[in-house]
């Protein structure tokens, strides 16, 4: 039976003193996930999908059962809507490259929020350039918020795509994606939701949200690296051309042309990552057993502790809202006069892992007028002691850099 805390995560056996507050970059992996992947390779490994022998049937089942689990997890209408990719970045590139190239014309508009991760920003920038379309930006309010009204104002009849994270990896605030989707659809705009930071933290149901596409990464939700998901509405995926070519994504190939396999295989070129999918399946089961209710409660509590402590620390400035309720486990901040890289290095000297830099969101940092920031993020394996050690260290930083207070 899992414990649903640090004890499930072998990295904390290897480094008992580690205070890991960088789960937004990547999560640690619980034993059930590590073991599921090993077991797959020890007992079920073969090249899935076309095998005509028992072991290949097992491998295919393992892979397709993982797809079914993802489908349940995000409430998709059909397993045909679940495409396995390498990570959220690939999922987003796939949408821009396949759906985008096919549907964006000159003078169309693509709207993205100013706080998007580069992975949900650059593919649109490149697409817009290629097509002579216009890339427009939705800017957040001073608490990092985006409202339905803001979106309504920014949409025009030419807006073909709106791309937004459900939770920004810097601001950490939950955006009203359901309302956004309604507004977009009234406007004939397709909505691409980056779920890289939401799917690991809150229950996400694509049909309730009404999004057209959702992208996320396994490695941020306790699964191994190298496996990600693209959800797309069947109707849209159906009309899209393939993304990469080769392997089981074909139907017939001749010297002068080819027809392609059915969904979702059309988008899965080359040998699939069954081991990664099995790991993702185990991660979904792990989250499922824990339950989002408890998970959210724990993360909210940790966030509250972090933010309250930060607010008591002079010279610390939180990015976005100062209300803990507006953060889903993610808090980015700066300290007056101290460079974020130095801050992270000092935390590291105390065994505390936090991230510093632009967090792949340079446009947001520019918009906020800061070069870079530090980010602390919590997951279910963090505890009160982690927040205490973090805050203790936080208070010493300016002093350790030579400032009197």
């Amino acid at each position, binding site marked *: 039976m899992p414990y649903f805390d640090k004890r499930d995560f072998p990295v904390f056996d290897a480094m008992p003193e580690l205070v890991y507050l960088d789960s937004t970059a990547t999560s640690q992996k619980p034993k059930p996930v590590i073991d599921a992947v090993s077991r797959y390779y020890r007992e079920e490994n073969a090249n899935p999908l076309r095998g005509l022998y028992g072991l290949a049937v097992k491998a295919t089942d393992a892979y397709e059962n993982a797809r079914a689990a993802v489908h349940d997890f995000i409430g998709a209408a059909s397993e045909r809507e679940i495409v396995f990719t390498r990570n959220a970045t690939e999922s987003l590139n796939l949408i821009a490259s396949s759906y985008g190239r096919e549907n964006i014309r000159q003078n169309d508009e693509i709207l993205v929020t100013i706080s998007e991760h580069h992975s949900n920003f650059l593919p649109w920038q490149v697409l817009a350039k290629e097509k002579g379309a216009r890339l427009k930006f939705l800017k957040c309010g001073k608490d990092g918020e985006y409202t339905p009204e803001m979106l309504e104002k920014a949409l025009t009849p030419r807006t073909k795509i709106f791309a937004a994270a459900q939770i920004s990896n810097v601001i950490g605030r939950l955006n009203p994606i359901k309302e956004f989707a309604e507004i977009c659809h009234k406007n004939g705009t397709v909505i691409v939701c980056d779920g890289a930071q939401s799917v690991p933290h809150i229950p996400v149901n694509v049909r309730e949200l009404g999004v057209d596409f959702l992208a996320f990464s396994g490695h941020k939700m306790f699964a191994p690296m190298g496996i990600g998901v693209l959800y797309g509405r069947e109707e849209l995926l159906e009309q899209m051309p393939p993304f990469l070519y080769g392997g089981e994504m074909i139907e017939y190939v001749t010297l002068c042309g080819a027809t392609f396999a059915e969904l979702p295989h059309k988008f899965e070129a080359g040998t699939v990552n069954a081991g990664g999918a099995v790991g993702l399946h185990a991660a979904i089961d792990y989250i499922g057993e824990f339950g989002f209710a408890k998970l959210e409660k724990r993360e909210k509590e940790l966030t509250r502790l972090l933010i309250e402590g930060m607010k008591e620390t002079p010279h610390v400035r939180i990015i976005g809202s100062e209300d803990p309720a507006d953060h889903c486990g993610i808090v980015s901040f700066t300290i007056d006069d*101290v*460079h*974020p*890289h*130095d801050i992270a*290095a*000092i935390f*590291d*000297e105390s065994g505390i892992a936090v991230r510093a*830099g*632009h967090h792949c969101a340079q446009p947001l940092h520019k918009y906020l007028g800061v*070069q*870079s920031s530090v980010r602390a993020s919590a997951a279910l394996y963090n505890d009160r002691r982690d927040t205490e050690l973090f805050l203790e260290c936080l208070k010493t930083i300016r002093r*350790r*850099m*030579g*400032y009197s207070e």
Partner: protein
Amino acid sequence: MSNFYNEILTDHNMHPVHKHELAVCTCSREGVNPSCGDDITLNLRIEDGIIADGSFTGSGCAVSQASADIMLDLVIGKSIDEAERLHALFMKMIRGEADDSELEELDEAAALADISHMPARVKCAVLGWRTLGESLPER
């Protein structure tokens, strides 16, 4: 690693001696670390093969700023050859290959020796030196 931000480093960061414009300079060069956002401009006045004066401006982490200031302490007044030699020595230290007598020669710059355990910060420590290397006349 547990006390990398020692007094030498924080002092040079908070109270840099050479962080200012240089009225008369023979060469001015920008160095950046895209991934960190560190950005310095190194100004040198070279006369008769000697670094007669130098300064820097810019912004960045304490490591990049302090390292540039310490570097200027070391090379101002030295010949170009000597500066080149110190540059090479510093790089050697960063790779973790300098011996004790070499560390001694680097004086306060030796405070940065431990950076070799933090690959992501090496660029910061090296920024000033790299820019110096690019500023010195080729021979």
